[in-house]
C-alpha cells in the first residue's frame, strides 16, 4: 500500500480545516472498510487520511416524535442493525444495515461512509430515500442540508465539494410513513453486493384502505440509488390492492436503468425489480399496524 499521512482530529473545525487544505488529496477515515480497500486497489490515492472518529457527537442516533430521526454520520452499521429504536420505528433501516457485508465490517462501517462511498448498490441508500432523508453537510464557507435524492450524482460520486464533510442524515417524518422494509436480492445471504435492493415505505388510511403516502427506492438498478417515482404515483392516493401493487411494480421495473455485470444481466435485474418491489410492498403493507 502506498504511504500516506494520518491525522486524527477531535473537532469538526479541525476536520474541515484539513479537508480544505488538502482538498482531493485527503481521504476521510471513519470505518475504513471501503477506503482501505480502495487504497489497496489503487482506486484512491490520498496523501493524508483524516481520522474523524474522535469527533464527539457524530455517532448519535436521536429520535423525537415531532422532529423525527437524526443519524450521525459516524453511527456504525452495526448500531443501526441492533438499535431497538430503529428496529421498531424504521425497520427497513435495520434490515438494510443487517444485510451489509459481515459482522466484522458492520462493526466498523458507518452510515456516512456507506452513503459517501456512493455505490449504486449502497444498502443504506434505498430506505433513506423512501423516507425523504436529507444530508447535513459542513464546509469551510457554508453548511448545507441536501435531499438524499440529489446527493448521488453518479456511480461512486456525490455532490460533496472538496473540503466538505457529511455530519448527519435527517429523516423528518411529517408524512408519517408508518412502515418501511428493505429486501436485498443477492446471490449469497451475506458478504455480497445486491443484484437489486428494494426499499418500500407506506402509510395507509386503514379505514378506507387508501395509500396515503408511499416511497419506493432501488439500489443496484441504475447508476445511482433512485426513487421509482412513476411507480409511487400509481399507488399514492389510491386504494391499495394486489393489482395496484403488481402494476406499480411493473412500472418500477420500466423506470430503472440496470446494467449487466458479473452478478446479473440487465434483463434479470429489471425483472427482479418487478418481483422484489412487489414483495417489498406486500411486506410493508402487511407490517402496517
Amino acid at each position, binding site marked *: 500500500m502506498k504511504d500516506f499521512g494520518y491525522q*486524527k482530529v477531535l473537532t469538526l473545525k479541525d476536520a474541515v480545516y484539513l479537508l480544505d487544505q488538502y482538498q482531493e488529496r485527503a481521504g476521510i477515515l471513519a470505518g475504513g472498510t471501503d477506503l482501505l480497500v480502495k487504497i489497496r486497489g489503487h482506486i484512491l490515492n490520498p496523501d493524508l487520511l483524516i*481520522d474523524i472518529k474522535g469527533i464527539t457527537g457524530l455517532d448519535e442516533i436521536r429520535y423525537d416524535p415531532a422532529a423525527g430521526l437524526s443519524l450521525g454520520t459516524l453511527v456504525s452499521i452495526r448500531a443501526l442493525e441492533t438499535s431497538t429504536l430503529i428496529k421498531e420505528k424504521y425497520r427497513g433501516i435495520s434490515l438494510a444495515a443487517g444485510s451489509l457485508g*459481515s459482522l466484522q465490517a458492520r462493526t466498523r462501517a458507518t452510515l456516512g461512509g456507506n452513503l459517501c462511498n456512493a455505490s449504486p448498490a449502497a444498502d443504506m441508500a434505498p430506505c433513506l430515500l423512501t423516507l425523504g432523508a436529507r444530508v447535513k453537510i459542513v464546509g469551510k464557507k457554508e453548511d448545507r442540508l441536501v435531499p438524499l435524492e440529489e446527493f448521488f450524482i453518479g456511480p461512486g460520486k456525490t455532490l460533496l465539494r472538496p473540503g466538505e464533510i457529511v455530519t448527519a442524515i435527517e429523516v423528518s417524518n411529517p408524512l408519517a410513513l408508518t412502515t418501511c422494509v428493505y429486501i436485498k436480492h443477492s446471490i449469497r445471504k451475506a458478504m455480497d453486493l445486491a443484484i437489486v435492493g428494494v426499499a418500500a415505505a407506506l402509510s395507509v388510511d386503514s379505514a378506507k384502505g387508501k395509500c396515503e403516502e408511499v416511497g419506493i427506492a432501488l439500489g443496484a438498478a441504475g447508476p445511482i440509488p433512485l426513487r421509482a417515482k412513476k411507480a409511487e404515483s400509481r399507488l399514492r392516493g389510491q386504494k391499495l390492492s394486489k393489482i395496484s401493487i403488481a402494476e406499480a411494480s411493473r412500472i418500477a421495473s420500466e423506470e430503472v436503468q440496470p446494467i449487466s455485470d458479473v452478478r446479473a444481466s440487465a434483463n434479470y435485474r429489471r425483472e427482479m425489480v418487478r418481483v422484489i418491489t412487489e414483495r417489498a410492498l406486500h411486506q410493508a403493507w402487511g407490517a402496517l399496524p
Partner: protein
Amino acid sequence: MREKVLRSHLIQVTVNGEIYEVSVKSKKTLLDLLREDLDLTGTKKGCGNGECGTCTVLLNGQPVNACLVLAVEVDGKEILTIEGLADGSMLHPLQEAFVLYGAVQCGYCSPGMILTAKALLDENPQPSEGEVKKAIAGNLCRCGSYNKIVKAILSVAAKKRLPSGYGLIGSTMGASGRVSTGKNSRSCSSVFPNLDSE
C-alpha cells in the same frame, strides 16, 4: 500553508492484557502489527481485504477484520487475539469444543472463527442456529467445516459438559493458533465415538 504530514506514530496498545508501545507507519495495518511487530502469528492473513475473516480479532470486545484497521487507529485500545484466549494450558471452552467437534481441519479459519464466536456468545449467550450462522457469515472456511463449527459453538452455548480428564486432545494447532504436541494424544473418534450424534 502546508501542514506537515505525519507518517510515523508512537502508539500504545493493549494486546491480550499486555501493553505494547510501538512506532508504526501510517499505512501499517493492525494485522501486520500483530503478526510482524508483536510476533503474534495466530491471527492469519487471508485475503487482506476484509472478505474472508481469517484476520478477525476483537477490538474493545468487538470483532473486526484486522486487515482493515490501521495500527495507528488502535492507540489506547484493547485487542484480543487467539493467543489471548487460553488460560495457560487450559483451553477456552470454544477452543476445546472446536477441537472435539472436528471443527478444526486445516485450522486456518479457526482463530478468526473462534474469536467471532466468542464475541457472539459474549453478547448473546443463547443464540439460535440461525444467529450463529449469521454471526460467522464473515468467516470463510475453505475446508467446509461449517457444520461442525456451528455445532461446536452451539455446544458451548448450551454449556455441554465435555467429558472430564481429557485435557488437550490431539493437535491443538488450529484452535490455539500455534503448533503444539497435545498431551493425551488420541484420535477423537476413538475417544468420543458418538460425538457427532450429540
